[in-house]
């Protein structure tokens, strides 16, 4: 089972009382018990530190468009998986699996996805194995 933790979460001796969390960000923002499928169009693929984001336009009920912010890990980590700034482009039709935000914010943590060319890098293939 993989450790679903990006970067570091360090509680150090000096912070024993406070149990603080050190990280780029916190996975506590996302509901890890839920997985939501979002189908939409990439508005922007923001390849930037500290974390990469997919800005996704999703058609809501009634036909309006909603913009979702899908948070990924750092460019350094994604590059080691094989992603690059051009892996997704504006206009790409994708289906993403995310852990949604716990509050009402239209956002979530990237889990896996399918793009124009098939499963996105590192996503399970139809046989069920990761690439």
């Amino acid at each position, binding site marked *: 089972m993989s*450790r679903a933790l*990006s970067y570091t979460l360090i509680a150090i*001796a000096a912070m024993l009382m406070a149990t603080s969390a050190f990280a780029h960000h916190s996975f506590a*923002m996302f509901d890890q018990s839920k997985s939501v499928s979002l189908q939409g169009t990439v508005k922007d693929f*923001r390849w930037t530190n*500290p974390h990469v984001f997919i800005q996704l336009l999703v058609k809501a009920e009634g036909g309006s468009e909603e913009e979702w912010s899908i948070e990924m890990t750092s460019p350094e980590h994604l590059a080691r998986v*094989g992603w690059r700034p051009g892996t997704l482009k504006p206009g790409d039709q994708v289906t993403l699996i995310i852990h949604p935000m716990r509050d009402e914010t239209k956002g979530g943590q990237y889990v896996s996805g399918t793009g124009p060319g098939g499963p996105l890098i590192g996503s399970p293939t139809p046989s069920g194995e990761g690439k």
Partner: protein
Amino acid sequence: MGASAEMPDWSGQWENVGATPDATGGFNQSLDEVLKTMQWGPPNKPEVQARVDKMVASERKRLAAINRGEDPGGAVRACTFGFPLVMLDSPLMFEALPTPKETTLIFSSREIRHVYTDGRPHTPKDDLWATPWGDSIGHWEGQTLVIDTIAVKSPFASSESEGVAVMAFGDVEGAQTITILSPQAHFIERFRMIDKDHLEDQMTVIDPTNFTAPWHLSRTYQRVAHIHRMVYEDCEGEERNPIVNGHFTLAPPPSSATSQPATAPNSAPSAPSPAPQ
């Protein structure tokens, strides 16, 4: 300029075995597997074990809260690992650059370890202060670099006397304290290539203040796949997770235009504007 022919070739980018990232932000080994590989049983003195147990209980309480769907808060942003974490359970990649008088280990967090092999002793006490990476000197035994490090302080502690907590990643969120080192901790490493795709660090931590005996650890590193140059983590950049009242939040993207594609070098110059009439 070039390395001596006797210097080993450690060129390339390296990562901790077990810390290969995946696209979700996770890694390929569980905490239990990593701890076993690290030979994680530090010989803590009873009073140190009591402190560690308290920290672990606190960390697990925090993790349980998150698993219940709560955000316990208390978030603080930090982007520095320090030594020995950069060598132990780190998600970073690094380059190891040996030269006759100094070997540098350069990490993707922009942290650098300098190991001086020019015969100097450790920095004299009245010139020495503790840093997150310590004071490292070394010597070569064949193709093995023997590193001796002192004067390490936690990157987060407000004073040296607080010592350094050695952590490992936890599940979902929540590191697990392995041990706490005193400011007197002394590290001996034997760093070498074990085959063309693996490096190894055999580390001994000598800390009679906190340990009943020296602590031996073993860490291996493998070549990074999919990228063959150094790229850096950076806490700066486009901050989308501001901390509000101790909680990380998600902010919308900047209101400026969408990201521009990378400009190719040697682009053709644009056509000249028509001359004014």
